[in-house]
């Protein structure tokens, strides 16, 4: 090929590839625009005042298409599929208890997006904001509403970096003391202090404002750990536990367990662990669950599964009986006053 024909081939290549790239972007843009319009047959969403201390309401991130997508919405506590009141506060992850809310939000900047954790009061006004080092994944508020925790994924910026790690922070909303990284707590497994470099901690669930449970991973094993904020310790109680969620009476942990023989693409099942006997009970949900479940009351679990709008909320009894059923579609990150 001579120089001219090479340039012609390059020009044709640029035009073809450019057309594909522009086409793909326009297609995605059109899809994004559709998501901003309410879907026929979708849930009724109206803007309005939302109060986190309203005992007759439950809250979640509205995933339904329309102008209020991603906003925290209130629904009747007894009928989650009922009309949604949108608060105007957009969150990727959310949790609330006793009138305190934690919202992990995206901040759209000029040159890049970043993330913040926002502590909300009962009227969903921001009290404080904290910059985050990565992508939000879990958020929890203690039963008293005083302490909040969040987990983000931090990724290395190396070429095609595949080394992800988590960073979990715990914040006292009265003194505003922040424990920025729970990996600095002393981790013990079987009574031995663990000194390896690969510790990751995620998925805090609070017992009270001092004690909590979480997942700690090291050496390829995940552990349920009991954390103490005063002593700054994490003590492993049980292995193969991820994303724990403590029952309202503090006796059981709902969690996702990596089960043997499962499809490696979908390895987690929803289990409940009795903290006294350490006996594991499989729930009636046999599909893969990748969520930190929430207790709706002392015997019912609520969790997210992928749905047509990103996520639906499902429910199953905690004692291993019964079958799962769809609670509400197009919803994520629920919070119930219990």
């Amino acid at each position: 090929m001579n120089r001219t024909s090479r340039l012609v081939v390059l020009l044709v290549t640029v035009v073809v590839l450019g057309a594909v790239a522009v086409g793909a972007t326009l297609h995605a843009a059109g899809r994004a625009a559709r998501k901003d319009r309410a879907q026929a047959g979708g849930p009724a969403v109206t803007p309005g005042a939302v109060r986190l201390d309203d005992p007759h309401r439950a809250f979640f991130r509205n995933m339904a298409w329309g102008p209020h997508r991603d906003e925290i919405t209130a629904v009747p506590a007894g009928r989650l599929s009922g009309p949604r009141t949108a608060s105007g506060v957009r969150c990727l992850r959310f949790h609330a208890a006793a009138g305190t809310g934690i919202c992990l939000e995206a901040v759209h900047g000029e040159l890049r997006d970043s993330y913040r954790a926002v502590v909300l009061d009962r009227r969903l006004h921001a009290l404080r904001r904290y910059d985050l080092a990565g992508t939000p994944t879990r958020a929890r508020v203690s039963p008293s509403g005083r302490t909040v925790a969040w987990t983000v994924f931090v990724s290395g910026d190396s070429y095609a970096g595949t080394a992800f790690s988590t960073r979990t922070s715990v914040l006292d909303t009265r003194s505003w003391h922040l424990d920025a990284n729970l990996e600095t707590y002393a981790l013990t497994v079987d009574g031995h202090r663990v000194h390896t470099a690969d510790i990751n901690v995620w998925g805090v669930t609070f017992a009270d404002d001092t004690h909590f449970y979480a997942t700690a991973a090291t050496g390829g094993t995940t552990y349920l750990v009991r954390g103490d904020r005063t002593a700054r310790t994490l003590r492993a109680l049980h292995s193969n536990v991820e994303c724990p969620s403590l029952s309202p009476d503090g006796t059981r942990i709902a969690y996702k367990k990596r089960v043997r023989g499962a499809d490696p693409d979908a390895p987690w099942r929803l289990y409940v662990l009795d903290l006294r006997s350490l006996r594991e009970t499989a729930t009636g949900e046999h599909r893969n669950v990748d969520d930190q479940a929430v207790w709706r009351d002392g015997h019912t679990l609520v969790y997210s599964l992928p749905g047509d709008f990103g996520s639906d909320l499902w429910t199953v009894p905690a004692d291993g009986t019964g079958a799962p059923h769809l609670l509400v579609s197009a919803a994520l990150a629920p919070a119930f006053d219990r």
Partner: protein
Amino acid sequence: MYLADRRATPAAAVSGARPGRPPRAAVPATVLVLGTVSLITDISSEMVTAVLPLYLVAELGLSPLGFGLLDGVYNGVSALVRLIGGRASDRGRGGGHKTVAALGYGLSALCKPLLLMVHTLPLIGAVLAADRTGKGLRTAPRDALISLSCEPATRGRAFGVHRAMDTAGALLGPLVAFLVLRAAADGYDAVFTVSGCVAALGVAVLLLFVPGRARTSVTPRPDTAARPTVGSLLRRPAVRRLTGCAVLLGLTTVSDSFLYLTLQRRLGLSEAWFPLLPLGTAAAFLLLAVPLGALADRIGRRRLFLLGHLALLAAYGLLLAPLGGSTVLTCLVLALHGGFYASTDGVLAAATADAVPEEVRGSGLAVVQTGQAAARFGCSLAFGAAWTAWGDRWALGLATGGLALAAALSARLLRRVPAPAVPLSEPVT
């Protein structure tokens, strides 16, 4: 073989820099083309890297934690592929470099549309591993092509130009991804498609404009008998010493992510600054790569390679010193870090080219680069362990001491190599 080396100087370089002409000759077209290919390819790959965490967590709702566990395996596979790629590229009487490099770029380009089709962690991990394999495959033959297409006297600058273009692409990639996401909210599929198109363009530029045979002037040699093996490569004192130094210094080169973590902790930076730190290093690398490459041509590549590690040593020192946190200090550390890359990354390739005959250029580059990469991976493991056991200050203190020692040893080792990189005085073989 020395004579063969000289005779084999590629046509492009000969026409660009005739004997007697000063070393400030124009950068050969092939180097600019390869720089363009790298720039385009880095835009493509950094687009994906920038959005991947968000895509996994926000779009797919996956927990990407398991990823880190396989890192060691990937690194091992990548090292092996790099060696094989370097070795294979030396075959084919000069056409092999382009072929293997094109395979590597092509494999990475194919991985982008594949990302659209896989939605589970193991498969995404496999695609990323294939992407990385492509990078491992292409690095050594590409650097061989650069070294073969320019006059030995200006190799440092040529590699500097290439690395600057490469880094410019890495800086542009996240920006392009952001613009796509700005145009189409949650348009990750669009990001991957655009990334795939950009990568394909890179392959097209490579195939169309990089000459197939760098050594057109060489009369075909009887192939297998003359070509030294990797073993005999390492028996050459110059190669052995250079590899030894790269490994020694690599063992005390703290990985970027650990350096940024230390920086953030020691200087008390807010979390929001964290994602910007690599940009600081890249900006300094971009600005300094060409001038420092040219400096390497003047004062000697091995010398600058060592001096670059002293810049890194200075950065460690600033982090250890009780200076408190300030923006100026952060910028200074990042400038030193970028300067370290600018005076070691392309410069090591140029120094390797000085020591390795053309017939095994790809293999030689692969050996040195693999040694360095493996040593740095080992350093990451050791640094992580030291960090957990004794804290960041001690870990960095140990790395600083180790680096000072390694630099001193390397200075002794490299001084004994005859004839530093003065123009036209390659080590006689």
